[in-house]
């Protein structure tokens, strides 16, 4: 199983929620980072189902079906540290295979290089009302957390650190704010903050690092950083 260190740095090749993750073998390759990719992938024989254990592939599928993102590093509750996620590495190393696989069953596999995570997108029904429902609810809760944190005078970076993050006091302060309550309720979080926190936890945008302590995963923090970057550019 390849580990985290085998991931090449793609920071300068892709930006944002890239629609075009390293497209191996076929069209779409550009830049120097890309040719390295291709060399690596062809070296590993990214041809199809060979070389991938069905159990691993099924585990990835299960994660996606639960609405989760697949992160490079996930929180290990017993060791209390972030550990490399083998599923992420598998996806990364056999990207074109998995992209094709999910394309065939009606999904887009989207790779976000700066937030270092994968997620699955329903490729049909773009116009339907529910298409962006999940994305909206995730964004909404993240934004509320981010705004609360910035208003309390702390750097957003701390939201993504296991030893800092959100404490019980923070959550009860958010829960005590009537405006946040109204917004959460209008976004179908009828039980308020606990339900919203659960929603993020289940999808791996938030990790629980202690009895009542939480911190944002790289995917969660990525969204807030994007908002800040967008603001700075004057968007």
């Amino acid at each position, binding site marked *: 199983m390849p580990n985290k260190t085998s991931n090449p740095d793609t920071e300068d090749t892709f930006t944002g929620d890239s629609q075009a993750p390293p497209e191996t073998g076929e069209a779409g390759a550009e830049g120097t980072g890309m040719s390295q990719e291709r060399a690596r992938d062809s070296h590993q024989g990214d041809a199809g189902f060979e070389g991938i254990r069905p159990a691993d592939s099924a585990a990835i599928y299960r994660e996606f079906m639960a609405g989760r993102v697949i992160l490079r590093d996930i929180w290990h509750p017993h060791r209390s540290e972030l550990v490399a996620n083998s599923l992420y590495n598998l996806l990364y190393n056999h990207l074109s295979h998995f992209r094709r696989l999910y394309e065939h069953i009606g999904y887009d596999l989207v790779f976000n290089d700066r937030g270092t995570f994968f997620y699955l997108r329903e490729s049909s029904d773009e116009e339907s009302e529910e298409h962006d429902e999940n994305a909206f609810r995730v964004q909404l809760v993240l934004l509320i957390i981010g705004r609360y944190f910035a208003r309390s*005078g702390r750097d957003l970076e701390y939201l993504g650190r296991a030893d800092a993050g959100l404490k019980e006091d923070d959550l009860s302060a958010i829960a005590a704010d009537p405006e946040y309550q109204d917004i959460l309720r209008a976004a179908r979080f009828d039980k308020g903050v606990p339900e919203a926190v659960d929603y993020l936890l289940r999808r791996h945008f938030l990790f629980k690092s202690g009895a009542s302590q939480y911190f944002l995963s790289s995917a969660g923090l990525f969204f807030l950083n994007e908002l800040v970057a967008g603001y700075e550019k004057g968007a």
Partner: protein
Amino acid sequence: MSKGFTTLETTRVLFEHPAVMFQLIERMDRDETRYVLENDLVHCVLDYVRDRKSSDRERIRRAFSTDNLFRSGLVIDIDKVRGERRLVFQDALLGMMRACNTSLHQELTDARLRSFLVTLRDLRDQLPRTRFNDADPDYTELQDTLNEKVSQLIGLLRQNIFRMQTISTELAEMSDDASRGDRAFNAFRQNLFERITTLYERHIKPTLVFLNRDAQLEDGANLFATLESIGAVLEYHHCQEAADQLFRSALSLNAMHRPIQKVAVEVDHFLRKTRRGMVQYNAMEQAFQSLRDLLDETRTQDLRKTRLDGSAFVRKSGFLLGLKGHWRPKQYAFGQSASYYQLLHSELDLRLSDLRRESEAPVLPSLESGTRGQSMDVQRIDTLFRWLDSLELRPTQDLVQTLNGRLEGFIEGYRFPDLLAAINRLSHKPLPGLQLVMTNRFRTLAGEEPPEGQAPSEGQAREQYIYRKRRVERVNGQTTSPQTPTPHNTDKEGQGAE
């Protein structure tokens, strides 16, 4: 003779088009006056109605005309000074308008707070001179004034706290330019400090001091001490109820200290921010403002709109577009249960028996024929009813839909109105072994599309029938399973969604 509106109508127009009043109040606050120049009013109204429909324009112009405002009592005084007419609006109207727009809340200055305190102290001094009896007009008058002042004070403070809590937006606006560029930041910081300090010194700190239980004032007792001593005097004279009321007011005033302190802490944090911190703060505020706008959209009169519509919001950032949700099992119309097959068979049986009688199927006279008369209608209904009476029914979740499926395309000349008559007939006719239950759920049936390439004429326009769902149940209590849609129903639901 110009048309005038009643007070209620005028108020309604004023609130329907609040921008005019908002602008006038803003101007009044800026110039620190208590009146509006008639010229200003006219200009505002003309500006406002420029791009509107002419009927609207006329209505707004009339409602906002000085005459109408005066006659309806919304302007209480017109003063002519140096050839200009000054209009004094009713305080209650201005108060309501301010309540609708946080930026119009009046700042509570030190002087205003102080005047409240002085009034309360006066009342305290006057109180012992009365006889503490409801028969004494001095006492009741004093009581009234006391209540009025205290509730006014609470109202003002509440409004002010509300205003302060939106300070984050104000701070974000103030620092907007500076936080985006490195270069201007230092020069701007000085300016920002000054503005925020003014806000803090003139606005937040006096309120905080005013509401501090332990504050020592040079000129006498603080707010709470004053209220307590009034309460003590009342209690001493056995006016327990009045004393309790005052005590409760003191409690709510005391509780206001905390939210203001929170605001003060936030301002303090803000002043210490680095550029990076400020960008983060402002970015969060900006994004949050869009959420607020979405929330406001749910607060219109439309009762159905209770959920945020986030599609535009999501697309703006593009993060996680189309994220897959939890997988949930879908309901399929096909099943393997015994009841499903039973239903399928009984449905097939009924359809087959209909088909066997196809030769007997009546032809309903066309509705469009010119020779339509009463006798024709009777004949038509009679034919339909005779066919209906010979129909065999079975338990179903939705009788209207089932019936429509069995008549449509089977009986020549069948139309939606016939269905209405048919349902009516079945509701009033005893069904052997079955009972009809009317539910409170509404369903829609849509007619066939007119043939392609043909403009729908009046007669051919697609008809829709909205009805209350009716269930047919067996009398001995055996109903059809609600989970298992009949093949016919599912088929029809698909069509209805077109």
